[in-house]
């Protein structure tokens, strides 16, 4: 049985500095040759600064502490899968910005699955604000734990 009482639980705010070194490393990792990530002069002309790759904010999840992260330790690492991911952007996010994120458990539920047996789903939503206290983005992800290993 899943613990429904954690729905609505909010973590401690966490900091997400937007650094050029990490942005270009990320761009290379997704094989993105777009020069705006690698040439700050060009990026300044085209975008007002070095922008972030669309999915970059998800990396903040791996730097959150136990207090800022909803209870992921309930999952078995051998059977964890990423189910869904969503980003909504309200304002530009550029290298040099310092974002503050606030994560909240938006849902937890169980479902009978096909290949993976009984599955537990955890949905988490995070709101990001910048150093000017502007709301810049919202992220939402769903993680799931399968009842058995899924071998493709």
């Amino acid at each position: 049985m899943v613990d429904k009482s954690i729905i609505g639980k909010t973590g401690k705010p966490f900091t997400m500095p937007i650094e050029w070194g990490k942005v270009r490393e990320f761009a290379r990792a997704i094989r993105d040759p777009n020069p705006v990530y690698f040439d700050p002069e060009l990026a300044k002309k085209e975008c007002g600064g070095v922008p972030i790759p669309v999915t970059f904010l998800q990396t903040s999840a791996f730097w959150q502490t136990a207090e800022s992260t909803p209870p992921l330790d309930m999952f078995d690492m051998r059977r964890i899968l990423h189910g869904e991911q969503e980003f909504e952007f309200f304002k530009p996010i550029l290298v040099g910005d310092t974002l503050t994120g606030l994560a909240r458990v938006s849902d937890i539920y169980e479902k009978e699955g096909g290949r993976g047996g009984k599955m537990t789903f955890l949905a988490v939503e995070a709101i990001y604000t910048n150093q000017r206290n502007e709301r810049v983005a919202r992220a939402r992800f769903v993680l799931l734990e399968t009842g058995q290993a899924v071998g493709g």
Partner: protein
Amino acid sequence: MVSKLKFEAIKVGDAIPTIKIENVARPDFVRYAGASGDFVPLHYDQTFVEAAGIPTVFAQGMWTAGCLSRCLTEFAGAGQVRLFKVRFARQVWPGDTLTCRGTVTAKSEVGGEKVVDGDMEVVNQKGETTVKGSFRVAAA
């Protein structure tokens, strides 16, 4: 920041740029682990995955999603994406070749901004969908 996408020139049903990812390989997952901080061992530790009953390491879902997001920045420019929403349908394995693609489904104006919506997906060399989703980008 101005979108390079011309609102008037776009029609519902138009294809967005296709990105082909040839020969997915283990170093992609290791590089993404370092870049993103996602060190879930399913993506690089062969001993760990075999013990878990899985034949080989597989891609971080967000690596594949990142590859897909390139269609949108190519389409409208970096910083022009307003909504990016994906579901992970199937794992991506070493040796796969991926095609990232999408189609325009709607055009509208939201809060004084011209926007273009669409569906997008990543398919592997067998034609199976691995990631599926929808998007909204700004247009000029």
